[in-house]
């Protein structure tokens, strides 16, 4: 598969191809929607094929689709025969289209997503989505992801996340002293860009709700401080540099404040920082370790990790009343809560005697369901459509990223890099 990725990147990305996250599916595909993908008709057949492969890869790696990629565009005369064949093979829908070259390295791309069933005498296929776009050669990859988003939404009812990004920390231990790198890439691993390079650790990257900045902890100067860095300009500012811990930043959903952890009281506690006035308010008190604040989508409560009961568990703080109550009860270790967008469940990191696993906690009942097998797992992050969890894992000596669907059906491993990869964080829907 690797050579195909290199051809793809040379044609579509003007950025040099890095070692791309080639996802290898580690668990099966049940109930995947079977569709046919026909390369768009074009005088630029290479570009059209490359475009089709991006869409194919997107849809297949979601675990939601079984994609039959045709070798070439449809011949009009042969179409009815092909449709019959596809219907007989139980294919539900077909994606096809045109890619016209407009000169000046610009293209007009027209897509047709059609239902193979539900047609009438006049219209053998039932049209589902018909759209037209213009793009430069450099913009074709992003357009392919947008087409994948539309196909995904039309056929599953969920918003696609093919146009989203991930940020993560890499630790290169091959040099005399380790180098820490904060980077951002497309969710399929393309277009990796370095945000920060440092000789000291970087932790807990998190996206600002508008998708334009990252907050993170950096240990430059030998102690942890909280920064916010604008992604387009690289400009950054210090959000917190109190003595001791400045950690676990979490923007409120409205972007007006940020929850964070400080140890100025003597113990790690949650605080809320107003991002305009810079006023600070202490949210939790006492002698326990309180950390990992994570906002409920309605911004009215904050989940967090605390060992106030003797072992680390998930609690929920009601922001208005200031009261906290425990949410996780299975076992003696539940941390790293990340609420799903519908607010009814949390993804957590759960530990028992055999190791650590990503698990789902149903908020109303507290019931816990593991999504992965126990191992050396940490740092789960949820896609903005609430369907996929990206997390850090280990295979032998390599630290790498894996993904699992929230229903546990699909799991895939992103290939190991030369550097350790850790602390992934999934962007919101962008643009």
């Amino acid at each position: 598969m690797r050579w195909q990725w290199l051809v793809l990147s040379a044609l579509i990305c003007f950025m040099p191809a890095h070692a791309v996250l080639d996802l290898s599916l580690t668990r099966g595909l049940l109930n995947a929607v079977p569709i046919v993908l026909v390369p768009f008709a074009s005088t630029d057949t290479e570009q059209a094929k490359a475009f089709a492969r991006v869409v194919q890869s997107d849809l297949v790696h979601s675990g939601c689709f079984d994609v039959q990629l045709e070798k070439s565009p449809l011949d009009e005369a042969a179409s009815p025969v092909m449709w019959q064949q596809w219907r007989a093979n139980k294919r539900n829908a077909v994606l096809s289209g045109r890619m016209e070259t407009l000169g000046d390295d610009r293209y007009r791309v027209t897509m047709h997503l059609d239902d193979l069933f539900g047609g009438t005498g006049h219209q053998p296929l039932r049209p589902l989505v018909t759209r037209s776009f213009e793009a430069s050669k450099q913009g074709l990859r992003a357009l392919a992801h947008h087409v994948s988003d539309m196909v995904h939404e039309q056929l599953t009812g969920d918003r696609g996340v093919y146009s989203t990004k991930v940020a993560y920390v890499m630790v290169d231990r091959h040099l005399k002293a380790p180098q820490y790198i904060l980077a951002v890439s497309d969710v399929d691993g393309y277009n990796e860009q370095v945000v920060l390079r440092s000789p000291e650790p970087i932790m807990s990257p998190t996206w600002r709700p508008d998708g334009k900045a990252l907050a993170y902890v950096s240990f430059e100067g030998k102690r942890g401080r909280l920064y916010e860095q604008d992604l387009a300009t690289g400009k950054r500012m210090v959000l917190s540099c109190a003595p001791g811990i400045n950690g676990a930043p979490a923007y409120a959903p409205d972007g007006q404040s940020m929850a964070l952890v400080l140890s100025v009281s003597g113990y790690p506690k949650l605080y809320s920082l107003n991002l305009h006035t810079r006023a600070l308010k202490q949210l939790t008190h006492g002698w326990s370790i309180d950390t990992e604040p994570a906002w409920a989508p309605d911004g009215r409560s904050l989940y967090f990790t605390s060992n106030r009961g003797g072992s680390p568990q998930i609690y929920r703080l009601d922001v208005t009343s200031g009261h906290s109550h425990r949410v996780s009860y299975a076992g003696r270790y539940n941390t790293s809560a990340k609420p799903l967008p519908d607010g009814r469940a949390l993804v957590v990191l759960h530990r028992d005697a055999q190791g650590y696993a990503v698990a789902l906690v149903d908020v109303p009942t507290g019931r816990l369901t593991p999504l992965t097998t126990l191992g050396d797992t940490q740092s789960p992050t949820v896609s903005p459509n609430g369907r996929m969890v990206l997390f850090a894992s280990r295979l032998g000596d390599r630290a790498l990223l894996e993904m699992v669907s929230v229903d546990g059906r699909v799991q895939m491993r992103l290939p190991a890099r030369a550097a350790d990869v850790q602390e992934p964080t999934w962007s919101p829907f962008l643009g």
Partner: protein
Amino acid sequence: MKRWQQVGFGALAVLVLAACSSKEATRSDNSTSDVPAGEVRAMVMGDGWSSAKAEASVGVTVHFAFDDATVTAADRVLLRPLANALMAHTKARLRIEGHADTRGSREYNVGLGWRRAKAVYAVLIAMGVSASQMEMVSYGAEKPVAMGHDAAAHQQNRRVELMHEGSIDA
């Protein structure tokens, strides 16, 4: 450091804000990497950012049991000479660095490292060392000394390291 310990919690917000002046951000080296304009801009920290003060290890590392922050009696014995040296050299400063093993939540591990640093700090305070000579930091799981993933490596990583500035030799 002294200021923080003497001020009540009510004035905390003001002091926290005052300490983070914009100077902090502009001191960094804002060189751009080979990234096209309009894309993400990188920041590269040079070695000049590391503390310029000469720091040396005290030569004592305190270790901890799984999920625990208790300083053993044996380790207390090891800390006594350090306490005496700090009391004899009041200009010397000590950095107490707490660490955790590499498993599980990274931010919770920062909390564990903090509790361990605090436990060692408390022992030294009880032995008579002045709070103004000591600073605590937690690196959580971010700076392991043992790269393996077995019980032995985890045991080595659950530790407090002690760095001193200024002479504490007799």
